């Protein structure tokens, strides 16, 4: 009788907890910026599992993942840092850590979460478990009384974070081996107005895009003593200054084989760069000003979305042919794209049509359409295992 009771109780409990035991490798979140919520999605079932609400102002929100792929850390524009449990589909912890924030990163060992802030300008580092503040790194420059907006924050091996200072024109490498006493190496005069940065998939090179001048700033993190140097002197707005309706994003920058593909600034082109020499080797004409230029995980395709007013379309470049092979119209205001872990499908957010569209990357067939409220960023748990994501 007693054992029957305990069996019944166990059944009842598992029924109440609702969810069958499952992994998170095929899960992800979609930012719904109008409603301050995230949709938890399943990329195998191509379904929305549920929503988590109460994340504040999610314009320009981004997310990183705990190394077990269970928790997403969502960085909101209002300085909110929210740890979302994908399995229980609820907020595990939430803090307001700054007045105006732009994104974040998680350390190689998964213990530290860093947020990059515009106001107050700097980087804050938190315990990934508790979100306790461990280190505050103000981006002071010049006479030390001014603080720069921080952009392009990326994790690199060795409990380090790299980031760029927009007003200061500097790149900093913060070593958080001792989380409460960060050691900061500063590269000064790297160029005018760095607006975003990325680290190559091997964690070796940090590259900052410059808005105030042509070219990009490169730091070889394996040889930091060489300092920062300028590459691609012709990259940028060039002689004919074209208006830029949305800053291109560099994170998620496409490195495919020995080539990198990057958004031209203001021009309707994707630039092709040899990553051994850092010389430009080609330009591919596209429909509009590129915002995200992303490689399918196998590197065979590059997917490109565009700034206002051309943001109803997405183009696909074949990296063998080095040209556009497909143009798709997923919906109005395409803001982001995310590949499934091995890239057989891509999820695309169409903000003004309030939907997510899933495409087969081989046949370009529409596999699914899912409703979402003003969807923007899409982030899958496979990011947990990638340097710089």
């Amino acid at each position, binding site marked *: 009788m007693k054992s029957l009771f305990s069996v019944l109780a166990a059944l009842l409990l598992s029924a109440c907890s609702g969810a069958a035991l499952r992994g998170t490798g095929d899960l992800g979140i979609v930012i719904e910026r109008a409603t301050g919520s995230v949709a938890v999605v399943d990329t195998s079932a191509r379904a929305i599992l549920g929503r988590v609400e109460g994340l504040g*102002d999610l314009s320009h929100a981004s997310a990183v993942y705990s190394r077990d792929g269970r928790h997403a850390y969502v960085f909101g*524009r*209002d300085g909110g840092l929210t740890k979302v449990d994908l399995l229980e589909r609820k907020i595990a912890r939430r803090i307001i850590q700054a007045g105006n924030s732009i994104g974040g990163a998680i350390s190689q060992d998964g213990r530290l979460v860093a947020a990059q802030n515009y106001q107050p300008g700097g980087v804050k580092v938190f315990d990934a478990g508790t979100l306790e503040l461990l280190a505050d790194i103000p981006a002071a420059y010049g006479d030390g009384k001014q603080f720069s907006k921080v952009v392009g924050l990326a994790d690199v091996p060795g409990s380090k974070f790299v980031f760029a200072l927009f007003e200061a024109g500097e790149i900093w490498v913060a070593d958080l081996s001792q989380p409460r006493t960060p050691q900061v190496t500063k590269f000064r005069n790297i160029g005018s107005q760095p*607006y975003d940065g990325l680290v190559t998939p091997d964690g070796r090179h940090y590259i900052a895009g410059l808005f105030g001048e042509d070219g990009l700033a490169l730091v070889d993190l394996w040889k930091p003593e060489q300092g920062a140097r300028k590459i691609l002197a012709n990259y940028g707005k060039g002689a004919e200054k074209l*208006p*830029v*309706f*949305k800053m291109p994003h560099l994170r998620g920058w496409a490195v495919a084989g020995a080539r990198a593909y990057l958004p031209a600034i203001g021009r309707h082109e994707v630039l092709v760069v040899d990553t051994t020499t850092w010389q430009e080797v080609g330009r591919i004409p596209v429909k509009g000003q590129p915002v995200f230029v992303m490689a399918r995980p196998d590197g065979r395709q590059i997917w490109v979305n565009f700034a*206002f007013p051309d943001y109803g379309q997405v183009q696909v470049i074949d990296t063998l042919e080095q040209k556009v092979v497909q143009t798709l119209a997923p919906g109005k205001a395409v803001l982001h794209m995310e590949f499934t872990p091995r890239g057989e499908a891509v999820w695309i957010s169409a903000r*003004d049509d309030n939907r997510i569209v899933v495409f087969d990357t081989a046949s370009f067939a529409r596999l699914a359409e899912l409703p979402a409220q003003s969807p923007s960023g899409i982030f899958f748990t496979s990011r947990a295992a990638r340097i710089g994501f």
Partner: protein
Amino acid sequence: MNAKPIALLSCLLFAMAAWAADPPPDRQRELVRMVRQDCGSCHGLTLKGGLGPPLLPETLRDKPAESLRYTVLLGRPGTPMPPWNAFMNEAEADWIVRQLMLGFPEETR
């Protein structure tokens, strides 16, 4: 009487009327969405600032409306602010500036 001056005059009157008139409601909705979403990608959806400065009434108070109009239409050289004159006319830019100074409307859904 020659028709030409009348045509000119009515043209002028029409331009003046357009100057003072608010854009029609549908266009207002489009402009609100454009400011919130597209300007918002640099200035923040709540217009509290991002890579671009805040566009709140208290931060704009001391700036002349005319210079704000030309910032919107022609951009600001030396900064990332682009010109938006391909997507709106002067009257629409003026309307946006007025709304920004008053506290910009939310999107109606």
